[in-house]
């Protein structure tokens, strides 16, 4: 177990170093960084001096190592456009994105899993068929369309919910939260639903197919033959056996929700990292793009690590304790 964690951590470091290499390469591939920093009328001498002070004359390996060390310390350099440290910009934007993503995933899980269990158990039920039809819509409609339709109905026509922004936020040190004010919560509803809908239908369909699979197994039949209550069989025995794939997918989806909340953030003018990234791409703001790349990679690596640890918690077959007498799982 311990060795496993160490091994996984080392792998994670390797992944992060690779990502850092790609981020580092961004600076060199997208033209001369000096040109991006200075005006057209800067003299060659000044350029040379700037090049020297920024360390751009050192060998690539030295520069890469410096980049890795700085990045590890959270120093992503200065934004070309805004002339501010990228770190500060990210910290300002991160809470908005993380709050939106995590609320969406929680929403998706708390609605998706029960719906999946229900449609798995009552395969031919009327309500189950309705859920399945709705899920088809959720899985096939593009996110921006759902967002725009929500804005049209609840924002423009009914005027119940704000159509853009994050509402009022409360600050706790560097973290700003919109979860504690009425306007913040109201502003969160539509983006969260937009972002959650696809994840929810995905989780629902996954849980359903896993449930159908598990309900056919011998140990479920045997559990029924022992007279256990439906509740114990369906939720105690069946649902837990569907969890491993659900954890995998949810973990991956949380990562991509954080990384690709861009569309939802654009539609709702949500002041998150996704929008910052889009703006950075438009402005060729390399330090911001590189920092975003590293940060998202870090999220994925951490989430995957947590997912792996959850497997251990759920499935005893993965725990290595040598007490077996030759059984095969």
């Amino acid at each position, binding site marked *: 177990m311990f060795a496993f964690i160490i091994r996984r951590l080392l792998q994670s470091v390797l992944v992060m170093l690779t990502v850092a290499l790609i981020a580092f390469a961004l600076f060199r591939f997208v033209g001369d960084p000096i040109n991006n920093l200075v005006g057209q009328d800067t003299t060659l001498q000044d350029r040379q001096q700037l090049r020297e002070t920024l360390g751009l004359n050192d060998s690539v390996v030295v520069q890469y190592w410096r980049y890795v060390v700085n990045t590890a310390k959270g120093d992503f350099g200065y934004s070309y456009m805004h002339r501010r440290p990228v770190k500060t910009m990210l910290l300002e934007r991160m809470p908005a994105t993380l709050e939106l993503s995590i609320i969406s995933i929680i929403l998706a899980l708390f609605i998706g899993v029960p719906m999946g269990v229900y449609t798995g158990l009552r395969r031919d039920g009327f309500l189950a068929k309705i859920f399945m039809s709705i899920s088809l819509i959720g899985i096939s409609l593009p996110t921006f369309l759902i967002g725009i339709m929500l804005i049209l109905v609840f924002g423009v026509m009914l005027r119940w919910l704000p159509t853009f922004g994050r509402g009022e936020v409360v600050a706790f040190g560097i973290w700003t939260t919109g979860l504690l004010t009425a306007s913040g919560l109201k502003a969160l509803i539509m983006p969260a639903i937009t972002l959650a809908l696809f994840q929810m239908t995905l989780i629902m369909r996954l849980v359903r197919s896993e449930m159908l699979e598990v309900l056919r*197994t*011998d*140990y479920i*039949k*045997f*559990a*029924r*033959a*022992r*007279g*256990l*209550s*439906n509740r*114990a069989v369906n939720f*105690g*025995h069946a649902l*837990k*056996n569907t969890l491993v794939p659900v954890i995998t997918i949810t973990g991956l989806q949380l990562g991509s929700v954080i990384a690709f909340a861009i569309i939802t953030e654009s539609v709702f003018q949500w002041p998150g990292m996704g929008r910052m990234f889009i703006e950075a791409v438009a402005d060729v703001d390399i330090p911001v793009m590189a920092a975003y790349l590293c940060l998202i990679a870090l999220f994925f690596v951490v989430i995957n690590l947590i997912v792996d640890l959850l497997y251990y918690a*759920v*499935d*005893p*077959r993965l725990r290595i304790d040598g*007490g*077996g*007498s*030759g*059984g*095969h*799982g």
Partner: protein
Amino acid sequence: MSVRNLRIEFPTRRGTLVAVDDISFDISPGEILGVVGESGAGKSLTGAAIIGLLEPPGRIAQGEILLEGRRIDNLPYEQLRRIRGRQIGAIFQDPLTSLNPLYSISRQLVETIQTHLPLNDREARTRALALLDEVGIPSAGERIDHYPHQFSGGMRQRVVIALALCAEPRLIIADEPTTALDVSIQAQIISLLKGLCHEHGTAVMLVTHDMGVIAEAADRVAVMYSGRIAEIGPVQEVIRTAKHPYTHGLMGSIPLIGHHVKKLTQIDGAMPRLQEIPAGCPFNPRCEKVMDCCRVERPNLQTVQKSRVACHLFDGADGEARAGE
């Protein structure tokens, strides 16, 4: 336990398939009834029907199932659930897949015990330990908290038996309990099952296609063919003096140590599919002694010596004479 005129149907788009057709038998307390037949003869379905776990769309179309004089096939789901495990236990074919891989043995045992018996956690655990001891799991106290994957196949089948015995059921349906096991372990499991049932006075319906298992364990045997009982009687009589041509063929196909046979008997052809069961006796296309009436009229079970046989050979007074060879 009695089964009366049981008929199991599968309604399909192309018409109704009859998987089990009008079978009746009894099992008395402490008795082991073997049920043999080829795959698809309806053995397992009969077992599933008795514990009320027929997979839809399969359904009991006719007949009744009585447990200690009380009819149980028409009970609502919840009442039947209370009978399952409490009065009728079940053991399935594959011990490797019968246990939930995510829960320890103790949890699965305690859960089952507490479903049926009013015991607190500690008492239930004590009972679970005693059960594991009884089914012959060495150092049960140590192994009770292990997970299924830490046990070998034979050990897992012992755990399955312990689970089936949790609430001391009156009847156990054992559906091919040894098929998935090594031959050397099969004998252990069968003798364990036999011993436990004699001790507790539990009746067993032992479904298998292994005549060796039947000869070893059963008191009586029912031979099934195409959803019907071909022959039912005391195990020694059925094995030694098989009456139905199908049973006869089955016995002839078993190699015996010490008997030198040039060629084992073989029953030509295969059991008909459910859609194609012929009129009259379902065995008539494969029967060596087929007569005209076999293709028209369905034979009913009739008493011949200590057995009951469904074959026209034994019709009327000269039945013995025609069968005599």
